[in-house]
């Protein structure tokens, strides 16, 4: 019974801890992001202001961190939901690989935008 039910996943605990840590980080970063774009200045979303933020090194770091944690948190969360189903139980490996690709894809796509400006 034990052998039958068991599938070893060394990345599971790291995924869980990172989900909690990125969650904490996102609570701070998204609140800041929301304040900056919606609550402080009325023209925060004007083109030149957005470009100005994107070229500012401090903002680049902040956006990079936000991008990395949100990509991980969102799609790792989706993975947890998928693995909660019978479908996920049958296709665990495929889902894990797909999710890693999606996380990397979202991260690289965002980095592309960050480095263009």
């Amino acid at each position, binding site marked *: 019974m034990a052998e039958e039910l068991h599938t070893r996943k060394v990345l599971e605990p790291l995924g*869980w801890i990172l989900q*909690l840590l990125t*969650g*904490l980080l*996102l*609570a701070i970063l*998204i*609140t800041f992001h*929301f304040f900056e774009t*919606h*609550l402080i200045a*009325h023209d925060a*979303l*004007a*083109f*030149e202001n*957005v*470009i100005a933020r*994107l070229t500012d090194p401090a903002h680049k770091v902040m956006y990079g961190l936000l991008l990395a944690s*949100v990509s991980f948190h*969102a*799609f790792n*969360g*989706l993975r947890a*939901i998928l693995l909660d*189903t*019978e479908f996920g139980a049958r296709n665990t490996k495929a889902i894990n690989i797909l999710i890693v690709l999606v996380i990397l894809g*979202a991260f690289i*796509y*965002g980095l592309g*935008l960050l480095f*263009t*400006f």
Partner: protein
Amino acid sequence: MDLLKWFEVRGKSLFYISYSLHRITGLILVLYLVMHLSYLTSLRFGEEIYESFIATTVTPTFLIFDILLVLVGVYHGVNGLRLILHEFGLAYDVRRPILYLSYFLVLVLWLYASYKLYVFIVGV
């Protein structure tokens, strides 16, 4: 469908309802993230196209979606902080007061953010 059992809240406590809502808001936020990241590509096409995107989405008509999105985000955030606390094995014995506190916080933060958004987009 078995998946609907995640959202079967009849006879369940507020803890379970929070679980269902956390799952729904999470899925909505994943969709929003994809939309938000795609939207940013408009920056590559220059000022004119970007500003036309902004002109259609930052409007009083879209305000209702913004306010709903803020509710979804604030809920997922505050409830998520509660879950993080408990998943690290902390404060389990006061989980009920913390649960009620989290709903109160969601309401306060949402009303505050919605008011500020309203002022920002519509003006006073």
